[in-house]
Every structure is written in structure tokens, then in C-alpha cells.
């Protein structure tokens, strides 16, 4: 029964999602696409943290790598030709320019993930958190300083959305919904791959190493190897998200790829629900939609004389939300929902316990 309800809910959600781009305004499409892009990155963090139990403070940095690579590949120009020498070959095949950008971003961030996780996994557990912290800050410094590569503080402007399979995706009146559909498609693929990984023996190994790394090792699970895999895959999701982010906002500068946004990803996952497939979507929704609501409420409250509320920024509210969520609902909003809809357990007939000579305590 519960299964049927869940399936029905998913179908309704999917239908709504497919219809939405048609009815939403350009801004509405933008918000919808932003939510999905952030959700992809959040999925990556969810894999690293919720399933494999590691801490990554670098997801925004990986998004940045994906975004800058994609910006270069979509804009062309001499730097892109110098850096990505295969680019001219792919450019002639314009329907694939977006896909090759996504692929390049994913590959680059996957390898980068392995590179930075490898040394830190051999040592104490929490070192990965600090290394990713250092990595994010370092990346941000590079983004900000190396103007020849990233445009420095000014960033890269005018990133045009390419056409895919003949469909124009520019933000013009006729076409802005197309890009949203493209993002929906990419998100669906990403979600499916994540679902597959999590339900495969790999997913079981990730869960094991999160719950009890010692025992997992004694069962032959190569704990370090799986941690690396989880981290690399999760980081690649960040790269893919960044790759979609660049054409979405059409202009990138270093600020969204700094430390604080990375931290926000962690918070998102906690609110949404770690280790669940819906969690990243819920968390991303909170992160993208909450600021909009807060702005509205704030102006209303302040207009009514509650001036103090003008100081409660989105970050403050979000942080308090996270702190309370961890304490009272450790499995996040997704977990709460699952608990509410769980069928009541039928008590077991315990004569079977007598067969083993054990009285169930």
C-alpha cells in the first residue's frame, strides 16, 4: 500500500515537473532549473556524506571547476583551444558541445577528487574534512587571482547556451523552457545513476564502511578504495552541476564557488535527509526557495514594525534550522516523512524464538 502511494506521488511529481516549464515565467524557469542543478551537486555530497560517511567541504569548489571548464568550452576562444586541444574536433559537432563540456567537467572533477582524497584517507578520519577545506579555499584563490584563466574577479561573461539536438536553449521568450527541460533530463539521468550505484553492491559497501569501517575491513571490503570511489563520484556530480550552472546563469565569477557555499551543501543534506535519495532534492529546495520566502516575510514583518527581523538573514535562519534538525530529526525532512508514513509494526509471534532457545528481549 505504501509502495503504491509512493509510486503515485512520484508520478504526480514527475508530471508536474514536466508541465511546469511551460507555465512558469522565465524567472520561474530559472528558479526551477537552479533547484535541480543544486540538487545534482547535493546528490554528490549525499553520496559522500550520507552513504559513505565522509566529510567533503569542497563541493562548491568542484562546481567551480566544472563551471569554468564549461564556460571555456562553450565560448571557444584561443584559451579554450590551448587548454582543450580536442575541443576543435568536438566543436564541429555542435549538438555535442554541451555534452562534451559536461563530460569533460565530470572527468576533471572525478580525477581531482581522487587526487585530493587519496593522501588524506590514509590517515585519521577527519583529515579529509580539513583537506577539502584547504582545497576549496585554494581553488577560490586561483579562481580569483588567475585572470588569464578565469577572468579573475570579473569572471567570464556572456556564456551562451548551446543548442542540443537542434533545440535552441537560449533564454529568449521562445526557448527558455527548453533549457529547463534539458536540465530536467540531466537531473533524471544523474538521479538514476545515483539510484543504481546505491542499490548495487557498491552501495552496500558504502553503507557498511559508514556504519562500521572496522568490521567492513574484516569482511574484505577495501575501505580506502571505496571511500575514494565515493568521494570521486560525489565530486564528479559537483562538476556536472557546475557544468550546467554556467550556461544557466550565463555569467560566472568566483563568489559562488567559495567556502561558505560548500558549507551550505552540507547543511542542505542534513535538512533534506542524509542517506536518502529524496534528501538532496528536499535540501536543495530549502536552499533555493527559502531565501525567496524570507525576503518576502522580512519586508512584511519590518513594514509592520518588527525591525529586528530585518537582521535575520537566510543564512542565520538556515543555520538555526540545521542545528535543530540535527538534534531532533537526525534523518532530516526525508526521514521524518518516512517515519510518519511507516506502517505500524506487527508484533512477531515469538514461538519461533523458542526454537533457538532464545527469549527475545
Amino acid at each position, binding site marked *: 500500500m505504501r509502495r503504491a502511494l509512493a509510486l503515485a506521488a512520484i508520478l504526480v511529481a514527475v508530471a508536474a515537473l514536466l508541465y511546469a516549464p511551460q507555465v512558469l515565467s522565465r524567472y520561474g524557469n530559472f528558479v526551477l532549473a537552479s533547484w535541480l542543478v543544486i540538487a545534482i551537486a547535493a546528490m554528490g555530497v549525499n553520496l559522500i556524506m550520507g552513504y559513505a560517511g565522509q566529510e567533503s567541504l569542497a563541493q562548491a569548489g568542484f562546481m567551480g571547476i566544472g563551471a569554468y571548464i564549461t564556460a571555456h568550452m562553450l565560448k571557444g576562444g584561443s584559451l579554450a583551444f590551448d587548454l582543450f586541444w580536442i575541443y576543435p574536433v568536438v566543436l564541429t559537432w555542435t549538438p555535442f558541445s554541451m555534452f562534451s563540456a559536461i563530460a569533460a567537467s565530470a572527468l576533471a572533477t572525478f580525477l581531482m577528487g581522487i587526487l585530493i582524497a587519496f593522501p588524506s584517507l590514509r590517515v585519521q578520519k577527519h583529515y579529509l574534512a580539513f583537506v577539502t577545506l584547504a582545497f576549496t579555499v585554494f581553488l577560490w584563490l586561483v579562481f580569483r587571482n588567475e585572470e588569464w584563466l578565469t577572468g579573475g574577479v570579473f569572471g567570464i561573461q556572456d556564456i551562451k547556451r548551446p543548442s542540443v539536438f537542434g533545440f535552441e536553449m537560449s533564454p529568449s521568450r521562445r526557448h527558455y523552457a527548453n533549457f529547463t527541460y534539458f536540465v530536467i533530463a540531466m537531473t533524471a539521468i544523474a538521479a538514476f545513476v545515483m539510484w543504481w550505484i546505491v542499490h*548495487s553492491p557498491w552501495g552496500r559497501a558504502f553503507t557498511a564502511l559508514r556504519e562500521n569501517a572496522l*568490521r567492513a575491513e574484516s*569482511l574484505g571490503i*577495501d575501505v580506502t578504495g571505496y571511500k575514494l570511489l565515493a568521494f570521486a563520484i560525489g565530486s564528479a556530480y559537483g562538476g556536472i552541476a557546475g557544468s550546467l550552472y554556467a550556461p544557466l546563469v550565463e555569467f560566472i565569477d568566483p563568489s559562488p564557488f567559495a567556502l561558505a557555499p560548500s558549507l551550505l551543501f552540507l547543511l542542505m543534506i542534513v535538512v533534506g535527509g542524509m542517506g536518502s535519495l529524496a534528501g538532496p532534492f528536499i535540501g536543495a529546495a530549502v536552499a533555493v526557495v527559502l531565501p525567496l520566502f524570507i525576503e518576502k516575510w522580512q519586508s512584511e514583518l519590518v513594514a509592520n514594525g518588527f525591525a529586528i527581523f530585518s537582521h535575520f538573514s537566510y543564512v542565520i535562519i538556515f543555520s538555526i534550522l540545521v542545528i535543530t534538525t540535527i538534534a531532533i530529526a537526525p534523518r532530516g525532512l526525508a526521514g521524518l516523512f518516512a517515519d510518519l508514513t511507516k506502517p505500524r509494526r506487527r508484533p512477531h509471534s515469538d514461538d519461533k524464538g523458542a526454537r533457538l532457545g532464545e527469549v527475545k528481549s
Partner: protein
Amino acid sequence: MTAPSTPSPRPAVATPDGRPQRVVLDVRDVAKSFGGVHAVRGVSFDVREGEILGLIGPNGSGKSTLFNCILGQLVPDRGSVTVDGHDVTGKRPSALNRLGIGRTFQLLQVFPELSVRENLILAGQEHKGTRLARLFGPSDAGLTPDANRMIDFFRLGHLADEKAGGLSYGQQKLLDCAMAFMAGPRLVLLDEPAGGVNLTMLENLKERLHAINAETGATFVVIEHNMEFVMSLCSRICVLAEGEIIAEGSPAEVRSDPKVIEAYLGH
């Protein structure tokens, strides 16, 4: 009820002292100290194919340290540990597992959020094909039949889909044992399997261990405090006291050895 597959038992070839010929575990002069404390001082013994060896001794005799040295949780200061000719001294636990060595834990370490069946599949999946192949293969790595057989063998059938965290202590112990055997190991080390288990369950556990030993020919080493359990389970006993072996032999021989009696009474 047949046990899941493992290396098929060969008829044991006996040596003059009545023990099988093939040495599965060979511990030579293993020693380990912590600071000034010599927990294990140069211990040597071997375990032959199909034997069930009991490692006993009063508290502080160094049993656990020795055990952990064999298992790769601790690196011995000197000496060697060889399994079926492979030198495993100081190797990591995952490497030992891949060489066909299983173990159970004194402090229960099943995976509480996974079901009983999932726990068993987990215990066997790393031995099935390559890691990449497992990603693209079926979700259970093809191990459901083996897991079911193990569930039947240890009589956990009605709990197969329960979360392991919800099982009673004794049931978790059985699961722990079953997990150690999932990968068809040639050598299993059991760390205080009888701890905290009630009498009836203990009989059941002992009987199942005998059964799996007989059917698969796997070799066991058991650390235990429970004398009754150890004496009736094991074919051979090693007694440790103050980091050294003071007696070795059949249960009857060891039970009547004056040195052993003194070691236990003297404490």
C-alpha cells in the same frame, strides 16, 4: 542440512600424534609489548586442517593480544604468522579476509541498519568477481541463494528480512558466525563466541559449529573463557599464561595438567 560451499573437505591424513598433516595456521615466535608490558612473549603453535583449536588462559594471559596479532589488528613486534603457506604477518584485516580467513567479534559488530540477509550478502560480496563487475551486476551480487542457505543453516529464517539491530544478542551472535563463513573461509577465528549467550543457545551454537566444521573441513581457532564450551567444542587446546604457552594438547590432557590448574587457581 548442507552447509554452503567451501573448499571441499579432504580426508585428513594423520601424523603419528593423531593430528591431520596439513598445517593451516602456523604461528612462530610471535611477541608483542606495549610500553613495558610484555603481553605476548614469543608464542609458537600450529593448527592443522579441520582442527578446532581452543586458546584459553586466565585474564591478562595475552590471548586477545595474540589473537589480534594473528588477525592483523595489531602488528607483532617479532615473529611470523603463516596461513596455508602465505605469510600474513601484520597484513591488514581486509587482506587476510581475501586470503580466506574469517573472524567473529567479541563485541558484536553486525551492521544494524541492514537486514540479516543483507548482512550476509555483504559478508560474501567482496569475493565475487571484480569490483567494477559488481557495479554492473545484480544488486545482490548473485549471493541470495548462498545467503539463504546460510540463514537456513543457522536457523535464522524468520529473521531474514529483519534489521540486524533488532535481533536479540544471541541471534546476532549467530549472524556474526554466519557472516564469518559466507566467504567460504579455510580458517575462522572466533573471538569469545560464547560470551553473554544463554545455555540453550550455547548448545545450539556449539552444534552448528561442529556441523559446519565437519561439512566444510574449515579450521577454527577459538578464544574463550567458558571452559565447558571450549572443552566440548575443541579438538585441541592451547593454554596461555602471562604471554606464554604453558600447555598444549587434547582437552583431557590439558584439563589434568598441573601447570594449567595452577595458572587458573593461582590467580
